[in-house]
């Protein structure tokens, strides 16, 4: 699903990503960990075709994401920091807008079914301005359900969620993966991130310094490796 080779992204002389290569198969889940400013969001935005890498090659869903971003966009969806929610539209109006813009079925029944799936059916006609951060994230995920995305990119999806919200989101992501979807999750949340991933990668200084199967890593091992690789040896988190 994703084949990235030697990706590099610089802003002026400053490299944000440096020689990043990764491969992710269909139906796999990858969690990206790393301190702030190490390039997690930049990497997600490059995979999403929102940013062009300075150099390197990237194929997503079989197409060249740098040369033919349009060919890639139909296969992916993204839930970033902003969640693409219009505050003055209701939940169902937001879904209708994105469904039509994405060329998808915008029938009332389909939209309400998507809201039901993310447990927002009772708030379908409420304006998004009144929603909590967790509700806005659910609304964004309802938008994902309307599409046929095979790759879902999430940037800090667990931030601002309570325990129940995190559990619900983890289950949602696992069910997306169980249906054959591919996940890339950038997060600071070790336990939630590892819980939805097949692989865990740590980014530090714009480079992937660790990429291992999640089953091979206990949470304590991961924390220790993170401290050594991302924060410097001997640093306790």
């Amino acid at each position, binding site marked *: 699903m994703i084949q990235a080779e030697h990706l590099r992204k610089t802003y002026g002389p400053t490299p944000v990503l440096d020689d990043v290569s990764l491969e992710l198969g269909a139906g796999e889940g990858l969690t990206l960990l790393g301190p702030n400013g190490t390039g997690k969001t930049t990497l997600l935005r490059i995979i999403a075709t929102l940013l062009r890498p300075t150099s390197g090659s990237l194929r997503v869903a079989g197409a060249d994401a740098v040369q033919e971003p349009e060919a890639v966009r139909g296969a992916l969806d993204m839930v970033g920091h*902003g969640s693409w929610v*219009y505050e003055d539209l209701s939940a169902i109006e937001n879904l209708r807008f994105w469904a039509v*813009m994405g060329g998808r079925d915008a029938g009332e029944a389909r939209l309400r079914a998507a809201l039901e799936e993310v447990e927002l059916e009772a708030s379908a006609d409420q304006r998004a301005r009144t929603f909590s951060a967790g509700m806005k994230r659910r609304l964004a995920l309802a938008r994902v359900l309307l599409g046929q995305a095979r790759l879902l990119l999430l940037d800090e999806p667990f931030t601002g969620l309570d325990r129940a919200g995190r559990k619900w989101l983890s289950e949602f992501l696992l069910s997306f993966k169980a249906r054959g979807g591919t996940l890339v999750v950038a997060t600071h949340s070790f336990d939630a991130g590892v819980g939805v991933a097949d692989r865990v990668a740590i980014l530090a200084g714009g480079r992937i310094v660790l990429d291992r199967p999640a089953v091979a890593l206990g949470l304590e091992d991961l924390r220790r490796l993170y401290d050594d690789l991302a924060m410097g040896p001997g640093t306790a988190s």
Partner: protein
Amino acid sequence: MSGYARRVWMVVWKDALTERRSKESLNVLVFFSLLLLFVFQFALGPERARVEAALPGLLWLGFILSGLLAFGRTFLVERENDCWEGLVLTPGDKSAIYLGKLAGNVLVMIVVEVVLLALFAVFFAIDFTPVLPGLAAVLSLGTLGLASVGTLFGAVTAQMRARELLFPVLLLPAVVPVLLASVSATQTVLSGLPLADAGAWLKLLAAADLVYLVVGILTFEFVLEG
């Protein structure tokens, strides 16, 4: 309705609904129009001949100043919650978004123009009804030209830090042909002459509209992608 037309309509529907609920732009624009009219009233005084001579220019000064406020805000709603990213990632021809935004801006400008004309009629005791068909034709062409450039530059500057400064600096020189032709054609119409007498200006206006519209449609995707 084709997929393209549905997407154009969806953008208009979304912006109209947002504006109806927030009333952010129209309230400000109507209040701004009222302020402008007070300023014009004080500047020109009660002398009828001075008012009539300056009227075409004043009308378009009011329209362009209101347009500067309206067009500059067109894409700001897309910055909230990163909706801009969503628009970039939507598959298909991005010019549908431009045309939807343009249609929304034309609608806003029509409301502003109707309010401004009504205020001019009240403040300066002018009866526009005998020249209304000709005036409507000139206003339609002029508004389309202003909105075509304004919508495009609204998108160009929306992602910039100094957008409030850059937007008028970019827009005003670009709309000089539209303003020149619109003011001159309005002068002809308000003088009671037939619309055909302003034929050359109207042709220039139509040509400028066409050029701006085509440039907007062709370049919007690159603007959106940044």
